[in-house]
């Protein structure tokens, strides 16, 4: 596991902002921390990057305890906070040069890295001071900054907040390319569609507690199971024969039996396809009517 939270707890004035959080994030995942404001996402992330101390429990990054060896962890990590702020009296290059100087890299390597990331984020050749940047440019600079040390783990707190659609699209591309490079990315967000689009796994936090976690595709299905089933919709060229399976709770057919809706307790799509092929029925469409991530979120959130 690349990141592990072990019974993590953080209290402020006796009130738990994060309560007994245990979670594991595999290497190479784009992991979404989902929850409304005040759910404990940012507190969890700040403990992960060593900016606040847990009241109890611990965070491990590739087996290294963040509280015990913060410098070792920070060398392998890139962090972009929600309110990412740079020194406004300096240019993008000067800002990056300042942060890069903190890493023990030779001057020539630093200069090369800075030029690379500025080029990659389309910020090269800008002499303007950061104070004159748009929010989107600052966000891009934030991503450029976290790539300076070529990190294994990237932590992005509310990365698309206040971004226009163009910048959001750019951000998604960047996250996809980071994933393709094999990096582990943790993204916190309260924007469900955003998490659904870029993340491979997700954890839902509510009032400081973990209420659900799993892959973005599994989680709705699991909810469907716990909520009493999901629906599979089938459209064929010829009439659908009678089908019987223990997981099928009910079946609804249209008048010519070329359309059907099966209420199931399990994922029986493969079985359905086999049955229809064996019966010589050509399938035009087969789709799962699963709850959206938003439905999942609302269901879990209100259940807590």
């Amino acid at each position, binding site marked *: 596991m690349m990141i592990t939270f072990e019974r993590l707890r953080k209290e402020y004035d006796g009130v738990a902002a994060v309560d007994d959080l245990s979670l594991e994030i595999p290497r190479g995942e784009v992991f979404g921390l989902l929850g409304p404001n005040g759910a404990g996402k*940012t*507190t969890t992330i*700040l403990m992960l*990057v*060593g*900016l*606040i*101390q847990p009241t109890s429990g611990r965070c491990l990054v590739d087996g290294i305890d963040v509280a015990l060896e*913060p*410098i*070792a962890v*920070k*060398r392998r*990590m890139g*962090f972009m*906070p929600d*309110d*990412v*702020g*740079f*020194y*406004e*009296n300096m240019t993008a290059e000067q800002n990056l040069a*300042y*942060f890069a*100087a*903190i*890493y*023990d890299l030779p001057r020539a390597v630093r200069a090369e890295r800075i030029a690379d990331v500025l080029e990659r984020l389309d910020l090269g050749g800008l002499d303007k001071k950061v104070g004159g940047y748009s929010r989107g440019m600052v966000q891009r600079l*934030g991503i450029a*900054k976290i790539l300076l040390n070529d990190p294994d783990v990237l932590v992005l707190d509310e990365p698309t907040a206040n971004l226009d659609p163009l910048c959001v699209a750019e951000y998604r591309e960047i996250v996809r390319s980071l994933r393709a490079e094999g990096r582990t990315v943790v993204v916190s967000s309260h924007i469900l569609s955003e998490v659904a689009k870029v993340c491979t796994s997700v954890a839902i936090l509510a009032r400081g507690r973990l209420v659900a976690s799993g892959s973005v595709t599994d989680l709705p299905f699991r909810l469907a199971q716990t909520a009493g089933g999901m629906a599979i919709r089938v459209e064929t060229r010829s009439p659908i024969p009678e089908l019987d399976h223990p997981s099928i709770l009910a079946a609804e057919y249209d008048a010519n039996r070329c359309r059907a809706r099966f209420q199931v307790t399990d994922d029986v799509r493969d079985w359905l396809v086999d049955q229809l092929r064996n019966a010589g029925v050509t399938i035009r469409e087969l789709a799962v009517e699963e709850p959206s991530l938003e439905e999942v979120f609302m269901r879990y959130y209100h259940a807590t």
Partner: protein
Amino acid sequence: MRLSRLRVVATKEFHDHLTSRRFLLIAVLLLLVVSIGLVGGMINYRTAVDRYAGTIGTVGESSADPGSATGVSLLDVFNSVGEQILLIGAILGIAMGFDLVTREKEGGSLKLLLSHPIYRDEVINGKGLGGIGAIAGLIFVTFAVVLGVLLAFGVVPDGYEAFALVVLGLATLLLVVSYFSVALFISTISRTGGTALVAALVVFIVLSSLLPVFVDPNVVGVFMGPPPAPPSLSPPGLAGTQSVGAVEPALVPGSGNGSDVTGIEESQRYERELQAYEERRLSLEGVISLFSPTLNFRQVMRELNTPVLTSVASAGTGSGLPDESPAEPEAPMASVPNVVESILPNLIALLVIPALFFGLAYARFMRMDIR
């Protein structure tokens, strides 16, 4: 703590100060005020020296050191700008430090910085060193300007004046660093820059205006209780109890009389009690003064000037001109060891105050949750 990372932060902070409008504005103001004050002081100094030269011409004598005999010392010239340095220096220190941490917290750069492989002590120490470096640079330039003005007027400071100039420079540096440290500490405990500024100004007013009130003899007297009451006057024979200093038992007539003897003893006891009371009062004043950078700086300036003023008082008539008997002044000349001894507590206080507040800022910053 890694020196390389400390240097990175300190260099950036130093550069930030030197290029900030706030610092440059106050620096220009300081240099302007000091220059104008100095030029004015030097014109007065030259006038006094010329007047003295005229007087010498009349009596047909000359002096190798006209400055010291005219009653106008170069230190008086420094004194004329001391209060301005005090005020602007304190404002400079506060302006440099009050938002050093809050600004980064509010702007989000502190979170970004501390997510890098850098220890917090490297950050806070770097901020401190960068600020002190900028202050030291400005003080050096200011005193270089002072020296330049003096030389432009054809005045070369003598040994003691050069010493005083260096000590004054050191005291100024420590004064500004004291207020800088106070402001830095406030910056670590405040949520916003606005709150920090208000808190720093309140502390500045307390240290520079309120604390001196407590050093006033009347106010100190309130805390210490009333001074000892003088003994009641005995009828005949016991004169002089109205004034303690005038009580001289040997001069009291009728010393064989028993009631006179009792009266003398009472007067002596009263004198001892009053002296002890005064010593306690002075020592309380001294202790209170040590808590204020402003009072310590003033005390250093006063002590640096005192030997010369004493010399003038005995050599002249108070007008700055020699009296009819131009004999060698009997008052002690400025003595470096004596002055050092007298200003040492204040200089130490000016070292301890910033060290204390920087220590508090350090402790607070190390334990701060960056949210």
